[in-house]
Each structure stands twice: as C-alpha cells, then as structure tokens.
C-alpha cells in the first residue's frame, strides 16, 4: 500500500482505494482476509479511527465483510464490482485530465488518437 500524504484526497478514502486496488490486483483474493485495522494503523502510522473509516466504506459497498472476532474478508464478487466501478470512473479520472493536458500542450485530436493507437499496440 502506498499513501500520498500531500494529496487533497483524505487519507480514509485513500485507504479504501488502496485496498480496492489490492483486491483488483489479486493481492487480496476473494474470501481471503485483508489486513486488520491495527496492522494498517501501525505500519503506516495512521490513526486507527481513520483506517476504520476507510474500511467501513468497503463494508458499506459490500466489497468486504466482517467476521466477528476474526477480521475482515473480501466478499465474493468484489473484484467484479470494483472493476465495473473503476471502468465507469475511468472517463472522469483519466480522460478529462488527458484532454486538459493535451489542450495545454496544443496536441490536436488526430495526434492524440495516433498516440493512443501507438501506445495500445506497444502494450500488446
């Protein structure tokens, strides 16, 4: 997990995002246990109330569930949910920023398409 303490995104949201990313990358598999509030708190020196607030977002969204006295586990179907949520957010988080930067640099539509096309074939 990595936190950007200079970011204007509150830490509790970053905690939720980081665990989501972990689930997406199969670091935390479905039905597997995620780190406890204390572990995250001690490792990253973050107040446990903040960590818990982040974890509770995941619980509320049904991505993670609590087993009393044991800990928190990744719900089945969580990865799929996160994937579709992030796909929906892709436009706002990436495309809008991309277009803004392209405009600043005077990159036109054609050039941009060409770059995306080139980037996509490199990735293959």
């Amino acid at each position, binding site marked *: 997990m990595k936190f950007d303490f200079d970011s204007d995104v*509150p830490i509790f949201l970053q905690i939720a995002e980081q665990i989501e990313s972990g689930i997406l990358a199969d670091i935390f598999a479905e039905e597997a246990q995620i780190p406890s509030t204390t572990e995250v708190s001690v490792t990253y020196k973050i107040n446990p109330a903040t960590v818990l607030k982040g974890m509770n977002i995941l619980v509320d969204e049904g991505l993670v569930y609590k087993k009393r006295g044991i800990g928190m586990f990744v719900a089945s179907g969580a990865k799929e949910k996160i994937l579709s949520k992030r796909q929906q957010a892709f436009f706002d988080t990436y495309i809008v920023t991309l277009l803004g930067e392209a405009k600043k640099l005077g990159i036109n539509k054609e050039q941009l398409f060409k770059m995306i096309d080139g980037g996509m074939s490199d990735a293959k």
Partner: protein
Amino acid sequence: MQNSIEVNNVTMSFKRVNALKDFSVTFEGGKIYGLLGRNGAGKTTLLNVINNRLIPTAGAVQVDGMPICENDKALAKIYYIGEKQLMPEEMKVKNYFDATACFYGFDMPYANRLAASFGLNTSKKLKSLSTGYSTIAKLITALACDAEYLLLDEPVLGLDANHRELFYRELLENYAKKPRTIILSTHLIEEISRLIEQVVIIKNGTLLLFASAEEMLSMGYSVSGKADEVDAYCADKRVLSSDSIGALKTVCVLGKPQNVSDSLEVTALDMQKLFIHLTNN
C-alpha cells in the same frame, strides 16, 4: 462527565503574564489528541493544570466528573511526562520502572521489551542518559503504565528519526490493544498529523481551534497561477498568505475551493502549513 477531562474556564496567572485566559476544552475518552501551539502559547501550563501540578488562578479541571485538585483518585488516572525528570538522578532506569509500578499498574515485561527494542540499558543511572534516552525512559514508563489518560509533553524530544518512528509504531500498537486518551504536545506537526484524531491549538493562552484532524486539513488550500488571475479568484476570499515569483503567484486561502478555473492549480495544504498560517501574528 464520565470518561473525559474537562477544563472549565481556567485562568492561570503568573507574576506578569496570563498563561491561560478563561480557557475551556473537553478531552473525550479514547482519542488521540494533538495539542499544538507556538512556543509560550500555554501548552505545558495547560498540561500542568490538568495534572494538578499547578493550581489555576480561576476555573477548575474535572477528570471523569471528579475535581482534580488534591484528589488522589482522579490523579491516579493520569500519567504525565514532561521535560523535567522528577525522579532522583542517581536512580537506575530499572528502579525508575519499579518506582512507577508503585503508583500505577505497570506491565514490567512489556517495559523491558520496549527498553530492549530502543536499546536502553536499564542498569544505567538516569543522570548518565543522553537527552534522547532520557526521553525514551520516560516514554516507556508512560506506555507500560495503565493510566487512562496519558499526557505526553514533547514526547520525541532528542529522539533520532529511527527512534521517533519506533515510538509512533509502539504508541499505535499500545493504543490498539488498550484504547485510552492520549494527548501529544509537540512541534513536529507533520509527524503526528495522521496519528492524531483531534487537534487542539492554543494561541496566547486561548483556544484557537478544536477540530478533527480531517476537518483541519480541509480548512484551507493553495491556489497558484498567473498573478492577475489568482488575484481575481481571491478577491472575495480570506487569504492567509501569498508569495510571488515573477508573474507566478501562490496564495493560501481559507475555505474550500469553488469554481476554480482550469488555468489555476489547486493543491492541498498540510497540517504544518495550516498551523503556521493560523498561528502567525
């Protein structure tokens, strides 16, 4: 009120100065507080009043609903470490642990474990400890005692970066196992900004801010861009400070960003920067 430290209208006057002026604040149980203020703001005076080492000129302090003044039962709930070492300087560290165990419930195996992880030799005399190790010895007694309220004044005084890091981890681990009220008074604001749940800022003996760490961090932001555009944006806002380098201007603004044009760049302010702006004269 149960499970809290209540400071009610406390005034503390010394010969020429009023260190605290009609000061009121309530520390609720089970939270970690950051007590911040510039040099001479009144932080240590407040902690001394809470712990009955100073008797206020006016006002009173209650712990779990009991007056603190000359009250052993209330005082036993509080453990306070400050800059001064009040134990005899000829005393050995291990005897300092024993002495603490006479007044409070004390986890000796844990204290010895902590001493080993910090590399503190418990056979040494208190007077032979360096500034850092003197602080570490005090911190260990605080962590290992069972007081419900820990008041830590300058808890990392003289500690190197490695030991500060270790202390913050041990503190959180301790807090996870045994949640209690911890008041940290320190100048190293950035190091504790994510550790604390609540922020209390004292300025000139009065309460300047009482907010959650999250609320404080969302109090302000900075905007930078072309000077005339920045000025236009800030025209109706409360500006904390501004810096110009050529035509580039950066302004710290109180409040939340609203309708910022794309040509301006908005960034978050960290707790230390906000503190500096809020407490500057």
